């Protein structure tokens, strides 16, 4: 059982690198969607006693993160205007390298935190911290607004994976609340994305999005 | 008791009747050096009498301030004379700090004379007033450092004590500072009473005048007051300088009077000689000279610190 969890976590970490490396936005949206699905199913596996409430929450997570959000984001990607590639500040190779450095740092930091005996072997903490770092890199190296939403999602996934450790402390109600909040947040960002498209249509969305508000 | 009353009477007479005579001695010295016979010794007294009888002309632009000028300057000089020692004879009145009364009475006289000059609204009198107050301000530190030296030596702030008997002993102990103070005070005397190196009392070119041009517009009795005030002020400075330079007291009251009068005459002759031999300083040179005198007396104070 533990191996399965570790395998899935390894998958999540690999997906992170794929998200970092992929140049096309459409593919990175799909990657993040997959990551959402995996993380949605994980609590069922880690949790020993499977309660129906747990199942409902898991299903809800998979549905939202796997399908609804990616579909909405892709709708935001207008075929005509939005550029295929998300031209990041730094090249793709360097963003991968950054991702690696980030993961290294996360692992180092994870070592400093002592784990309870039950969880010593688990990859959970490094995975979540790695996700957090990847989310950070996506947020800071990509230019387009959609990329930022993806960054937020990866960050949320990272925090969510850590949540798996303390399933019994977190009753399903709160977990659902967390999920709902994340979803509504991303939903709102989606709405704003449409407004941005409408407002900034004349300004190339890939260029400097929205740095009007600054201090001279 | 009678002795004191007589001496106070002589004190008043010397203080108030002798001043014009000082001017005549200076004039007579300059005439003798220039090989002229010179005016009679009592000429200043005749001038004063004549002026008191003459009619006067006042400019239409002037107000009561113009008349107040001479009155206040003479009043302040006369009051100041009561506080200074004439030779070995102590002053009639005195209190700790009367030195400052003396200094600030000169200031009051200067304030009103310069204001009266400005009241006429003429360019020349404005020029004279400006120069008068500026040079007086620069001469102030020189005079005051000298007072500090005397105050430090005699330990008191009363003029009668500072220039009193203890000064004789002080000359032996601190002769260098005191000598320097006397030189500085000589410069101050020449500046304050508009004597040659700094100002020519008999010049006719208004642009070069300092003191004379301020009283250009006065006439009649008011001008008489100014002349007499200037004379009293000259004698006042002379008395202080003579006492500071020659602090000897012969013990016999009558002899002290003679020593004092002789001292005054000697100083008058010295001023006369200065006027005959020295040429006037350029107007821009005067401030440098005054600051130099001030530094000299300041140096005297530093010498005391040794």
């Amino acid at each position, binding site marked *: 059982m533990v191996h399965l969890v570790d395998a899935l976590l390894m998958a999540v970490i690999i997906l992170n690198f794929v998200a970092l490396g992929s140049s096309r936005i459409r593919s990175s949206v799909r990657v993040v969607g997959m990551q959402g699905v995996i993380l949605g199913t994980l609590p069922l596996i880690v949790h020993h006693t499977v309660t129906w409430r747990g199942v409902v929450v898991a299903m809800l997570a998979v549905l939202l993160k796997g399908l609804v959000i990616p579909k909405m984001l892709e709708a935001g990607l207008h075929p005509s205007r939005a550029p295929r590639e998300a031209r990041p500040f730094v090249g793709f190779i360097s963003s991968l390298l950054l991702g690696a450095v980030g993961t290294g740092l996360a692992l180092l930091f994870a070592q*400093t*935190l*002592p*784990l*309870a005996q039950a969880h010593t072997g688990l990859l959970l903490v490094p995975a*979540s911290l790695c996700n*957090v770092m990847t*989310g950070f890199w996506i*947020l800071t190296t990509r230019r387009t*607004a959609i990329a*930022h939403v993806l960054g*937020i999602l990866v*960050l*949320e996934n*990272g*925090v969510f994976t*850590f*949540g798996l*450790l*303390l399933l*019994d*402390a*977190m009753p399903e109600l*709160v977990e659902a*609340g*967390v999920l*709902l*909040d994340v979803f*509504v*947040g991303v939903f*709102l*960002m989606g709405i*704003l994305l449409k*407004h*941005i498209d409408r*407002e*900034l249509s004349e300004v190339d969305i890939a260029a400097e999005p*929205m740095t*009007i*508000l600054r*201090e001279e | 008791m009678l002795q004191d009353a007589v001496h106070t009477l002589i004190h008043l007479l010397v203080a108030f009747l002798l001043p014009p005579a000082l001017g005549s001695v200076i004039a007579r010295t300059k005439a003798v050096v220039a090989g002229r016979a010179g005016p009679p010794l009592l000429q200043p007294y005749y001038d004063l009498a004549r002026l008191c009888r003459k009619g006067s002309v006042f400019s239409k632009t002037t107000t009561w301030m113009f008349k107040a000028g001479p009155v206040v300057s003479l009043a302040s000089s006369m009051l100041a004379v009561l506080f200074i020692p004439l030779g070995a004879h102590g002053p009639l009145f005195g209190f700790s700090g009367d030195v400052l009364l003396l200094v600030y009475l000169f200031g009051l006289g200067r304030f009103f004379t310069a204001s009266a000059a400005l009241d006429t609204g003429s360019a020349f009198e404005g020029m004279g007033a400006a120069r008068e107050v500026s040079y007086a301000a620069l001469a102030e530190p020189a005079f005051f450092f000298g007072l500090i030296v005397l105050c430090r030596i005699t330990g008191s702030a009363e003029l009668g004590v500072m220039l009193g008997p203890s000064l004789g002993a002080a000359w032996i102990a601190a002769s260098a500072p005191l000598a320097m103070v006397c030189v500085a005070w000589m410069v101050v005397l020449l500046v304050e009473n508009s004597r040659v190196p700094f100002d020519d009392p008999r010049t006719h070119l208004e642009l070069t005048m300092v003191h004379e041009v301020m009283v250009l517009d006065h006439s009649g009795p008011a001008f008489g007051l100014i002349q007499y005030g200037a004379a009293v002020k000259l004698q006042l400075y002379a008395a202080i300088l003579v006492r500071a330079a020659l602090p000897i007291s012969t013990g016999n009251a009558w002899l002290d009077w003679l020593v004092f009068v002789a001292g005054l005459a000697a100083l008058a002759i010295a001023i006369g000689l200065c006027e005959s031999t020295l040429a006037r300083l350029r107007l821009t040179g005067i401030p440098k000279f005054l600051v130099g005198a001030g530094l000299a007396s300041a140096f005297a104070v530093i010498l005391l610190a040794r």
Partner: protein
Amino acid sequence: MLIALLILPLLAAVAAFVLPSDRWRAYLVPLGGALHFLVLAPLVVGPTVTSSGNWLVFDPLGKLVLSAISVLYLVCSFFVPGYLAHYNHRPNRFFVMAMLGFLSATSLVILAHHLGLMWVAMEATTLITAPLIYFNRNVKSLEATWKYLLICSVGIALALLGSFFLAYASIKNGLPSSLLFEDLVKMAPQLSRPWLHAAFALLLVGYGTKMGLAPMHTWKPDAYGEAPGIVGALLAGGLSNCGFIALLRVLRISQAGGDGAYAHEAMIAMGLVSMVFAAVFMVRQNDIKRMLAYSSVEHMGILVLGVGLGGEAIYGALLHLMNNAATKGVMFLAAANMHRTYGSKQIADIKGVLHRLPVSGALFIAGFFAITGSPPFGPFVSLFTILGQMMKSGRFFVAGLFLALLGVVFIGMGASVLAIVQGRPTALASASPDREKLWSTAPMVVLLAFVLVLGFYIPAPLQHLLEQGTAMLEVTR
């Protein structure tokens, strides 16, 4: 009873959704505010109330913050009907619903005594205020909303991670894991130190972002700058305080867990950094609302600095929370009036407000003197108490820096305020028909009177609450 506090505004929000006419819908906001206040008043005076398995607890700290927010909300809500009537061409259904939703969300944050629930409520406040900021519907407000959402989401995510770290700290040592504050405070001494340490750092950064502490304050000038004045007042006076109370709850746990020294040093540092950022950005600021935003950053810094110092300064910080909320309300409403009359927020375009809008101008100046700590007003009392504690604990360098920064802020803000208020109004401004009506000035006068009274005399119930609050945060050992 506590549930009523949450449900009432929501009911009003639903009514707002249902009500067709814009004009009547606007009056729901003051109605919701009044109802909330009426329910709240007896609770504040009464003992600590707990309900639903002490997930919702109304402790002294909660009473202080919620009463401040409720009073501010009630007074400012009288501003809303007139304001919406003035902009009647805009649909205000979402605006009114969001306003009422904001009230219940903030109440939930303050009442929640469960880390997870508090986080959910905090995230809810962020999401509810987004449409409020976007009310002006132009490019700038769009960008402001976007940045607000993005940065707050990152912050909130870190806060969630911090909460999980805290929960894991209890599991690590084999204790029954629970996210309820009472349990955590009781278990604190046994919590594993590294997890507690990391959790506090994450929570400080997370909820610090929500509060607008530097260097996570970057969303504040944009959001407050582009939001309508009334929203700015509520955000500065209400929302930031929610972040502050969340921080206080976490601080209690950290102090109980023996990590108090680190927490205090971190908060003092964060406070001073916020004041430095505010001072630097306040100088030669050319937009009144951005200026008020930086003032809000500065005062959040002062709150955190006060609590970090401990002792009397906690009393000062809690009192400053009340003063700051009211004074920020005054200044934002005055800024709103000026923006409406002069049609611009740029300081260069606004002149002679004292002549054009006498009441707003006078209150703006009075608010400026109050917020920079001039004696007759409330903030002076709290700043002076905080300074007193600095001197008592011998932190002279911090005191010197504190006063210097207050001076620089005064200079930066004063130059802008006086440039607006003095002089003659521009021809354009005097031409516009806008007159000062009761709804636009009465709230400000009430708030300023409140601040002035706090300067002279602190009423007994408030004094009692402040002492209880200070006792809660006092380091017991």
